Every structure is written in structure tokens, then in C-alpha cells.
């Protein structure tokens, strides 16, 4: 099967700063590829390339086997790659259904007299959210009234509804409490089970491990390793994430201080 997304030795430089180099991984339908790394590891750069916000300048970026360079997020969207950003997934002052349809609004009428089909918009929003297991009382309420987890879920449901093949999630659990994070991960799993390829960016291995099928570890713009789930345990993932040997040395040092 051709992977939905494949990157081969991809690289990106901003002026003299090498933000990303030699990164390779794949995203398959019905699988979750986790991208893990600390701040400044190059996670954001990688997803910005995948989402069409920035363009890579080295290596190959293949979508369904075809080499490609997106020039705008719209192009990526048209190829079925939808991105949900951590803090800017939605417009808080707009209602849930207006957010849901933002950029793809349903209209009735013709020519210059095209008006929003508000009834259809509300009904579809409610049913699409219900299909994902999100039960909202009122789709007319401003998104700002929802909790952080619910906002992420609305954005995920939107991407799924509009036929995304690949869903890129940028730190969806970063600002959330334990319970909320669990809810969001449930929807990630649900999107995966619907056959979407998911790219999950996180710095929390405990969030990544239960839902992930493949783990790409980044550090200072370089890949630290790319593992299939059977190849790695949660402990090993955590250890590598935290800097492995470095952390052990630090722990030793701290013990010395404490003692």
C-alpha cells in the first residue's frame, strides 16, 4: 500500500538556521504516526512543511506516492491534509457551527445572491459532532464557551467531516488536564479507526504511546530514531525523549546534591 504521506531525508533551513534535516517517516491510512521531541526539536517545522505553511528545501515529500511541494495551506487541504493547531484551531467569538464550516460554508441561491444555508449548517454540525461522539447542547454557542478539549474535538470533527485523509494534530493535549487529554486522545483513536492517517505531535510519551503506531523522535532538528510500536517500550521511549544518558547523569548529580 502506498503511504498517504512519505518524507525522505527532508530538510528545511531558515537563513543560516538549520531547523530540520534528514528526517524520514511515513504516515499510513488507519495509523497514528507520533512526532516526539522537546522544544526546538523541529516538530513545528516538520508539520508546517506537511501542512503547506512552509516549503522544504531538501529531500522528498510524497503524498500518495506523488512528489509534491505545497505553496499554501489551502493546497494541502485540497489534497486531504488537514491540520489542527494547538491554540489556534478555532475562532473563539464565532459560534460552533460557523467555526465548523469556516472556509467551506454551505450556501443556497445562485450568482451574487448566495447566502449561507444556516439551517443545513447547524444540522450537519450537530450530526457530524454526534458521529464523533461529541454531544453539544447548542451549536449556536460561541466556541469560546467550550473547554479546551472540546475545542480540539470540534476542530478534529471538522477535519474528519470535510474528508481529510491525513490529520495533523499539533500538541493537541499540551494545555489540557489529564481527563481532557484523555478525551482528545479518544477522538484521535476514533479518527484513526475511520481510516485516517494521523500525525500526532506531542512532547508527552504517555499521550503518544497508547494511540501511536510509529514514533519519530526528533532532537535539535535531526531524527533520533523512528520506531514501530513493537520495537519500543514506553519506558524506552520516555528515556530517549528525556535525553537518555544525559538524564541519568542529571539524576545522579541531583542525588549527590540531595545527599
Amino acid at each position, binding site marked *: 500500500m502506498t503511504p498517504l504521506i512519505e518524507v525522505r531525508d527532508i530538510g528545511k533551513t531558515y537563513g543560516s538556521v538549520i531547523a530540520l534535516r534528514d528526517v524520514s517517516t511515513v504516515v499510513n491510512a488507519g495509523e497514528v504516526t507520533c512526532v516526539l521531541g522537546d522544544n526546538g526539536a523541529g516538530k513545528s517545522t516538520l508539520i508546517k512543511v506537511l501542512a503547506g505553511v512552509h516549503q522544504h528545501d531538501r529531500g522528498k515529500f510524497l503524498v500518495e506516492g506523488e512528489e509534491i511541494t505545497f505553496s499554501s495551506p489551502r493546497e494541502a487541504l485540497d489534497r486531504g491534509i488537514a491540520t489542527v493547531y494547538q491554540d489556534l484551531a478555532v475562532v473563539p467569538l464565532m459560534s460552533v457551527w460557523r467555526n465548523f464550516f469556516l472556509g467551506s460554508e454551505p450556501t443556497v441561491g445562485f450568482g451574487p445572491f448566495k447566502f449561507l444555508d444556516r439551517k443545513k449548517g447547524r444540522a450537519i454540525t450537530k450530526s457530524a459532532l454526534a458521529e464523533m461522539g461529541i454531544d453539544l447542547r447548542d451549536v449556536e454557542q*460561541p466556541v469560546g464557551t467550550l473547554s479546551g478539549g472540546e475545542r480540539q474535538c470540534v476542530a478534529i470533527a471538522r477535519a474528519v467531516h470535510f474528508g481529510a485523509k491525513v490529520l495533523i494534530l499539533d500538541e493537541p493535549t499540551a494545555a489540557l488536564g489529564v481527563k481532557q487529554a484523555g478525551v482528545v486522545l479518544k477522538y484521535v483513536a476514533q479518527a484513526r479507526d475511520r481510516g485516517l492517517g494521523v500525525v500526532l505531535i506531542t512532547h508527552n510519551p504517555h499521550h503518544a504511546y497508547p494511540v501511536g503506531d510509529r514514533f519519530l523522535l526528533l532532537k535539535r532538528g535531526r531524527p533520533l530514531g523512528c520506531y514501530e510500536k513493537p520495537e519500543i517500550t514506553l519506558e524506552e521511549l520516555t528515556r530517549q525523549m528525556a535525553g537518555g544518558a544525559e538524564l541519568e547523569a542529571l539524576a545522579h548529580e541531583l542525588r549527590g546534591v540531595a545527599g
Partner: protein
Amino acid sequence: MAVAAEAPLRDERLGSPRLLDRLVVRPEIGALLGALLVFVFFSVVTERFLSPGGVATWLDDASTLGIMAVAVALLMIGGEFDLSAGVMTASTALVTAILSTRLGWNVWLALLASLAFALAVGALNGWLVMRTGLPSFIVTLGTFLALQGLNLGVTRLVTGTVQVSGMRSAEGYESAGFLFASTFDLGGTAFYVSIVWWLLVTAVAALVLVRTRFGNWIFAVGGASQASRAVGVPVLRTKVLLFMTTAGAAWLVGSINILRFTSVQANQGIGLEFQFIIAAVIGGCLLTGGFGSAVGAAIGALIFGMARQGIVYANWNSDWFQLFLGVMLLAAVLVNNALRRRAERVRR
């Protein structure tokens, strides 16, 4: 997908929202109350305020301001300012006047040329703001000063004075004047046609804002432009079009002015930009964008017109108008702030 059209839109967990809650999240409600207050006050205090002639006067005063306030409100909901909007009303009038009186152009042709000029400046404003990423406040302050200089400089160069007059003898003045500056009779009182333009602009803007895709995008780019871009909203196009709309509205007002007064001063329009913004804010627009109403801005302009004329009818010194304006603006900003907090919590 099998979305039943008859799917229950009301959730059974929702009681019918209280009327007060439903009203309080509408951005224009504060302005409406203010307008009512001002209306009742001057109706009681003065006799002429409610007379047909009085009504025609304050409606006319509010109309040209209202056209601009509505356009500026759209721009502000889209998250931007246009400080050049006031001077633009003079620039467009000057272009029309110079072309038709000095170069002998047909008035209609001159109007078209000045519209093209306005749209070009609007597009330039929008393009500069979006390309540089600078605040529109500073970019349009630049165009404001540049236009002010051009207005005076070019007018002096062409006419030797700082005004252009003599529109009446220009070819096509009658028909153009009929469209932009005539009066119509309603119950024996003459009302200026600018009032109709005002109502028309407000209705179209309100419809576009809440009932069309473009209107949805206006709220979105003002509320969170990065998020909008990420879901495929053409942010640049939306904002450039908003700047062009504001400039287009300035052209309409400039045309109304030049055809009514048949002459234009080169220093007209300076300071009006703040009146537009004030009217829009009184009408419920947030300074930070993403929230507001076209109808509210029109009502904001109405308050302006009623208060300005009411103070004259009451035989007060017009100095008091500024005090009134300041208090009104502060009150509006406070109310808006409180309303927005509620709007984020309470459903519409």
C-alpha cells in the same frame, strides 16, 4: 450523508433562552438603548427636534456619517483600522471636481475615475498592511497624511486656491445630482436622498455580514486570522476587499458631498476618520476585531446626528457636543467590554 432536515435543532436539555440573555449578546443593543435615550431626551427638551424638518435634518446629518461608519465597522470586525477614510471623502470629491470642472469631463466619467482612484488607494492600504504585517493604524496614518498633502498640493497647483467649485455647470451634473444629492418629498418635508443611500448601505452590509460566506470570513479574519488561514480562508483577499469597501464608501460620501454643495475645500474630511470609528464602537464593534454589527454602526451614526442637531435645537453651545461624545464613547467601550465577556459565555 443522511442528515435529516427535520433533525431537532433544539436540544431537549435547553430551556428557551431568556429574552434578556438573547438581547444582551447582540452587539447593537447598547447603541439602540443609547439612541432611544438621546431621542427621548431631545424630543422632550426641544420642540424642533421632532418636527418633520428637524427629523430630516438630523437624519441627513447621520446619513453620510452612517455610510462611512458601516463600512468602517466591517473593516474593524475584520480586525483593521483605516485612518485615511476621512480624508478620502475629500480626495474623491476633489478628483471628481477637478476632472469635471477643469478638464471638462462628463460628471459620470469623473465619478467613475474617482471611484477607480478610491478603490486603488483602498487596495494599496490593504496590500501594504498584509504584505508588511504592520498595524493598519500606522500604515493608514501614512496614507492619511499622503492624501492630505495631495489634496492640498494638487488643488493649489490646478486652481491656485484651496477649493474647487463650479460643479453646477459641468456636463451630466443634473442626472448625477439626482442620484446622489436630490431630495424626495415625504409628507410635505424634503428629505435628502443620502438617507436612502445610508439605509441601503446598512442593509447590504448587514446581509453580507451575517448571511454570506464573505461575512463569515470577515468575523473569522478579525477574530483569529491565523486559524482562519489554516482552514483555508483567503485572509489577504478578505482584508484587501474590506479596505477597498471602506474606500468605496468614502467615494460614495465624497460624491454625495460634491454634488450637493457643488464645491469642495481641499482640507475637508480631516478628523472625520475618528468619528467613523467612534460611531462603529458605539455600535458595538470591538477595537480588537472579530465582533460587531453593521446595524449597530448605523445606529451609532444616528446617535451622532441626533445629538449634534439636538444640541443646536436646544440652543446650547456646540462645545458640549464633544463632552457628550467623550462620555458616550467611554460608556460604549465599557458596555462592549462587558457584553463581549457575556457573549463568550452566553449562547446566542
